[in-house]
Structure formats: C-alpha cells, structure tokens
C-alpha cells in the first residue's frame, strides 16, 4: 500500500492509502479519496496525545511556572493540555511540579493508583529529576527524583523550567504517546543497570 500522506504537521498521523485498483469492488470509486485505513491504536493514541488532562499537582516553585504555562501568555490549552483536573480519577498525566518530600510519598502513591490507565508522568524541574538544588549528601527530607516513585515519561530540566520548556516537554510527551511508547525509566531500573559486578 502506498503511503502518500506526504508532508505532515507535528500532530497528524500518517495513514496508508488504498488505491481503488487494490480494493477493486470493495470501495466505490467515488469514495476512494475519502477512505482511509488505520490501526485503531494509532487513532486512539492521537486522541490521547492531543487531549492530555493534567492533574493539578503543584508541589513547590515549579507549580508557579506550570500555572504561568496555563495562563494566557503561554496557553497550554492550544495543545489540548489546558484542562487541569483536581481529581486524579479524571486526569491522564501527573506533572510533578516541585520537590517531592518524603512525607508526600504515600500521597503520591495513592494518587498514582487512582489515575486510570493509560497514564503518564512528567518530571518538571531539577528536583524531580535528581533532587535538583536540594540534593546534598545525606539529604533526609526528599526523594531525589520522581522516578523513585513512578515511571517517568518526560524529564524537563530547569529550576524552574520556563513555561516554554514545560510546553516543549508536553509536546515531546505527545510525540511519545503517538508512537505508542511506554515509560521504562525508573530509578530502580537504572540501579539495576549500574550495579557493580
């Protein structure tokens, strides 16, 4: 089958095109330019990517830049990701915006469990990547990285990242969802690779 979807913008799915010759007798010739076949999962992934509903989960400073990204100058809504839901049961993506304290650990576990699959996690800011400015030897108060708790899909560095950086992170998550990739990076997984022999 030819793939003549040609030049695509960042958001469209490339679908194979059936020529009337190949599907002779099955599609009326008049309808052939308008009929497309696609894998259902690709369509669903496109829908999921373009309509991510984040959980309102501001923990610290990065929450302010997340709010600024949702405000009118940077406007997350044009990417479909502007509908922040306070209930985890209605959210798709958990944006960890801020340092994760140890006391927050059980809360995060509960919220992550409440989110229905498919769900994704964005680690926004240095604190959620590896502890950021609060990482120091024998730090007792925080988890040095969101991937101690959940599998993280996208890491956005910055302290705090600019709203444009958050938007770039959400766009790359959208790409990832469209491709149907799953998160594999967790701290535990990385540890396993690094264990000295």
């Amino acid at each position, binding site marked *: 089958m030819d793939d003549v979807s040609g030049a695509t913008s960042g958001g469209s799915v490339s679908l194979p095109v059936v020529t009337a010759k190949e599907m002779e007798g099955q599609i009326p010739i008049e309808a052939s330019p308008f009929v497309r076949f696609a894998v259902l999962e690709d369509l669903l992934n496109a829908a999921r990517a373009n309509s991510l509903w984040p*959980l*309102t*989960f*501001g*923990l*610290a*400073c990065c*929450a*302010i*830049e997340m*709010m*600024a990204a949702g*405000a*009118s*100058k940077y406007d997350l809504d044009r990417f479909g990701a502007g509908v922040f839901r*306070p209930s*985890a049961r209605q959210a798709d993506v958990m944006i960890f915006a*801020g*340092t994760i*304290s*140890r*006391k*927050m*650990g*059980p*809360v*995060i*576990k*509960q*919220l992550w469990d409440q989110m229905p699959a498919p769900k994704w996690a964005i680690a926004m800011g240095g604190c959620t990547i*590896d502890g950021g*400015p*609060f990482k*120091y030897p*024998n*730090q*007792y*108060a*925080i988890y*040095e*990285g969101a991937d*101690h*708790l959940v599998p993280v899909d996208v890491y956005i560095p910055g*302290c*705090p990242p*600019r709203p444009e950086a958050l938007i770039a992170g959400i766009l790359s998550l959208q790409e990832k969802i469209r491709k149907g990739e799953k998160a594999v990076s967790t*701290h535990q997984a*990385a*540890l396993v690779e*690094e264990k000295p022999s």
Partner: protein
Amino acid sequence: MTAPTDSPTLPMNAPPQAPTLVQAHDGDDETYYLNMGPQHPSMHGVLRLLLKLRGERIEVCDPVIGYAHRAHEKMAENRSYVQFYPNTSRIDYLSGMIYNIGYCQMIEKVCSYEVPERAVAIRIIACELNRIQSHLLWLGTYLMDIGGITPFLYCFDDREEILGILDRVSGSRLTYAYGRFGGVTRDVDDVFLSQATAFLARLRGRFPLYAKLVEGNVIFRERSIGVGVIDRAMAMRYGVTGPCLRAAGVGYDVRKAEPYGGYEDYDFDVPTREAGDCLARYEVRVAEMEQSCRIIEQAIERLPEGAFGPKKFIKKLKPPVGEFYFAVESARGQFGMYLVSDGKDIPVKLKLRTPSFANLSSMSEALAGTMVADTIAVLGSIDVVMPEIDR
C-alpha cells in the same frame, strides 16, 4: 544516577503506604471528619486540613504541614554561606528577590560590607517589583479559589511583564540569584528603567479594571465581608505579620519599624484596614501595590551613578562570632533570619522565621465556627506559600 541513601537511620526508605484517615465519629449523625489535601483543587500548595464538621460548620480545623519540607535549615548548617545562597530564593519563591537580597543584606550587616548607593536603589526597584508580582499572583489565585476565573488571566498577564523585566536583567523569572554580598550581579540599563516606568503606567491603568472586575461582584463581597476575621488580639497572639496584620488595624511594616536597605529614604505609606476580614486583606494588598509603585518611581528618579556591586566577588566569608537577627518585609510579612556564627564559613545555625508559618497557625482559630466553603476563601486570603512554612 546515584544510589538512594540506604542508611539504617532513615526508615523512610521503605515503600510508601497509603495514609490513614481519621475515622472516629462522635456517634452523632451531624459530626464527621473531612480530610482536605494535601492534594486539592485550591491553588495553595501541599497543605492538609483535617476538618471536624458539624453539618457545614467547622468545629475544629487542624492543619497538617510538612509536605514541602526540604531541609533548608539543615542545608544551611552543612553548606557555606555562598553554597546556601541559591536556597534563599526557593524558600518563598513568590518573594524570591526579597529573600535573596534579604539574605545578602543580612550577611552585609553581620560582616560589615559596604553596599554602593546605586546597588541600594537597584535592589529596591527589584524587590518592589517582586512584591507587586507576588500580590498580583495572589489576587489571581485568590479570585480563582473563590470561583472567579477571569482575573487570574489578567493578573498573570501583568505579572508576565514584571517577569520579563526582571528576567532580562537577572536571568531568572522566578527563583533569582540577583544579589551579591555587597551589591547586585549585573547593572541595569536604560531599557530596564524605561520598561519599569512603562510598566508602572500600565499597572496603574489596570487598577480601575481590577476594581471594576472584582470589587462590585456580589459573590466576591458575600464571600469576603465578615469572613475569616483575624482581629488585632488574635494577630498579636499568633505573631501574625504582613498584610494580614495590617488588615487588622496594626500598621507594622519592617521597612518602617526596622528600616534596612535604604527604605528609610523613601516616601511611602503603610495601608491598614480595621475589619480584619478577607475583604480587608484584599484591600490592603491592592493598596500596597500602589505604594510599591510609588517607591519604584522614586528609586528610578534618583538612581545614582556608580558601582553596582563589590569590587571583588566575595566567596569565603569570615563573619564575627555571635548571634544575629535580621528581618525584612516580604510580601507575606516579616521574614527574619536568626544566625549563629562561630567565625567559620559555615553557619552553626540559621533559623528562618517565615511569615506564613505564624499566619497559617492562626487559621484554625479564624476558621472555627465558619462554614466549610469558607475554608478556601480564608486560606487564600491569608496568602500562604507552603514551602516557606515547611522549609
């Protein structure tokens, strides 16, 4: 990637368990416990409120904090003065410039460093812009908590102007590293001054818009007037400072009471109201924005020529031995730093006396007897930043 700390003295490495909620009942159909947070729809960070309700009336409100505890004070005891410096903006990130420069001012007082006149004026402009930005964000989120979503967008739009001005000169939008021991990092140019002047004109033109959008609204008035009263006596008992105190009729402002950083040479008022309710706190903050505009105007007008920072960047400090206290007025109240020094480059102790800590502790008494729907309105009007409370 580094390994997690598996020290046996840190039992919290165990996998997290779901928190248990209070399940006790008084045996009475009308009384029950409601847990609000630490994740909740309001915009005020990770605060957990345990509410004991009788119908819709709050009998007891018990705030549970600590969800944003990041060990600032422990880091201060394990890091040199310069290494701790990036923490200062992150204690209260909405007054990041005030805290950052306040830390520098404390060190300058303790170690007797000179600050050039130009740097003093630049710092005042930056700190007052920071104060306006904090109040604008407060206004937008407070109205959003009450249910009015529109002012949020206008306030953030104005706030972006300030962030752009400060970003251009300091490199950061939110968590600044603009102060230095002895001045500021970079000089300001004419573009900065013209941007600041233009912003003042713009903001003053916006005040009538905000008044029209907000103050006449019947829902706003019903949810603010007489709600969450913190009166003078209660404020004294809890050590409340900042706009919450000034809304109770006490004109205490650290910039006037213990002048620092050049504020003694500037002409500005300290607005107060008498009622102590949410509306009074709103009015005080709006009036303070205008006063901050006055201060910025004066600073721009008299900005002297000269050096903007120390001749040499000071990396290693040799402070005198002893105990010191230094206070600044942040957007939320008195931020005090209690420093114990033994002459070395690492503090023995640095206690951060943050205003939101005292302000939030008054909330349980302010909420007793009110309706559960007022919880968010009162919490919003107190204007807390959780990481400042939890440090």
